[in-house]
């Protein structure tokens, strides 16, 4: 199977131009296969989020290349990267990050609206289906603020999928959910991976969860320490 993502010699140093620069990632090389379901584990401060943010084009590496579907996007400008995030990548964050002023349905549709395509019946149906899929069929019109943590995270999942991205990045998506909800959210992600063939990269500190994924990448002190594919 082809690689959707390739990292070549990625280095990341925070505060490069200050007195005490802090190198967080060291010559990292990594490829992710299309349609795969991956987890990244590692101790807190090991550089997992930094890595995921670079993959998601939210942050730039200090050096090295980032290839998405074989295309080197390292030197893309801000607008081109914004387009890539909008069209190719879905994000799920630990702190849910919905827009509190909008309803669940509006939040799900937001990435589509950002793409500036006309709102169609098809896309509204899709948004509704996604909300049904994540089990929030009855909360479509609820303001994001009025939903529980688990519900918000499920809205965020539906939102990450609305533009049919090829890659979904999740940074400790169940970090502040209880264990039952955590289990359900992972089952949902797995289900989506199988149904839509979406590639997932999920950061988790939960080994039990990581073991259910196809590939476990462990980061230690900014380097790949272990990489196990089942």
């Amino acid at each position, binding site marked *: 199977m082809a690689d959707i993502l390739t990292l070549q010699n990625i280095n990341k140093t925070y505060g490069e131009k200050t007195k005490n620069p802090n190198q967080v990632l060291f010559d990292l090389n990594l490829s992710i296969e299309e349609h795969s379901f991956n987890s990244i584990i590692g101790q807190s401060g090991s550089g997992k989020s930094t890595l995921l943010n670079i993959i998601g084009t939210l942050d730039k590496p200090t050096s090295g290349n980032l290839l998405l579907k074989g295309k080197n996007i390292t030197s893309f400008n801000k607008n081109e990267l*914004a387009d890539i995030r*909008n069209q190719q990548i879905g994000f799920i964050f630990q702190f849910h990050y919905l827009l509190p002023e909008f309803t669940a349905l509006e939040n799900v549709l937001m990435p589509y609206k950002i793409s500036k395509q006309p709102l169609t019946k098809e896309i509204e149906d899709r948004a509704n289906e996604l909300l049904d899929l994540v089990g929030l069929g009855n909360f479509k019109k609820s303001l994001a603020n009025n939903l529980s943590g688990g519900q918000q995270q499920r809205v965020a999942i539906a939102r990450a999928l609305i533009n049919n991205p090829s890659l979904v990045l999740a940074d400790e998506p169940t970090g502040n959910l209880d264990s039952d909800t955590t289990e359900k959210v992972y089952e949902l992600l797995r289900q989506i991976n199988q149904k839509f063939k979406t590639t997932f990269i999920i950061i988790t500190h939960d080994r039990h969860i990581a073991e259910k994924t196809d590939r476990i990448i462990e980061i230690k002190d900014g380097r790949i320490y272990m990489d196990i594919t089942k």
Partner: protein
Amino acid sequence: MKLAFQIAKRFLTSAKRQTIVIILGIAIGVSVQVFIGSLISGLQASLIDSTIGSRSQITITADANIANYDSLITDIESSTDNITVVTPTFTIAGSGVNGSLSENVVFRGFDFTTANGIYKFDELLSEGNLPTNTNDIALGVGLKDSLNLSIGDTVTFSSPVYGDTTLNIVGFFDAKVLAINDAWVITPLTTIQGIVGEGNVVSSIEMQLKEIFNDVTTKDEILSAIGSTYNVTTWTEENQELLSGLNGQSISSLMIQIFVIVSVVLGISSVLAISVLQKSRQLGILKAMGIQDKDASKIFLLEGFILGIFGAILGILFGLGLSYMFTKFALNPDGTPVIALQIDAGFIALSGGIALVASTLAALSPAIKSSKLSVIEVIRNG
């Protein structure tokens, strides 16, 4: 644009109290502007009216008395469309004598049908009637006292050039101007023409204008029609002080407006700047989802614009309400408004427009700030 507008609208409606406060802030600024503006132009109008409202605004004289004045008036009227009324007058000076009492008087002959258009003698009459027959006169109320006269009496007009003439008193008028009340004696043109004895002549032609500030242009139009044998003077040539007073008022009005605008701009931009901070989380999410920086900026520009629209409309309504109340409650003892405000639609539209532009500009720096906001900071800090 549509997306930025939807988001801007939602941000505003979901922080209702804050939105209302800003709109009220803008509205108060605009209403002060509208009110002060109307007040000052009302003041100016009443100042102009009391100074030159009942006076000749362009006066035509010649070195000798004017004989062909009817055809001259026709020429003047067809030379410009800025004239509301033209009237011939004939003025001589002398003394009014009643027994041992004597006063210097200005003896003025009028064609009252047109002269009332300037002087409104018909409204100024305090007693009796306007003179209609030759040698009938009306006098200012000051002369009535100083010469001790009443209606039905006769008085002698005495001049070293024209000798003595006995005149019949048919009325008195109160021009509310001391210099006129104490000196003017008015009569039909024929009285003066009889005394002077040069036939059907007058000494000057007086007129009032539609656009009083176009007086110099009108003067030129008249001069080119009637020729330069005549002397034409306009009210601005004789009232430089009034003009600089009016200018001073306009400048102080402008200063007030500028301060109001500055405070509106500062108010809005500080509130929107806070709002950018409050919304930085949302902006981070939107950017992570791929919103373009320029669309993110537009959200705040549009917020400024929307606030400006509502603030301007509300402010104009407030301002008109305030002006209306002022004319209803600030009254003279006789029930007329202390100052008749001048509501100028153009000026009001301008005030609203300026507030709108100012609000949008005030949103500029928050908008730039929002486009520079980095996603990663927001994502990291939760």
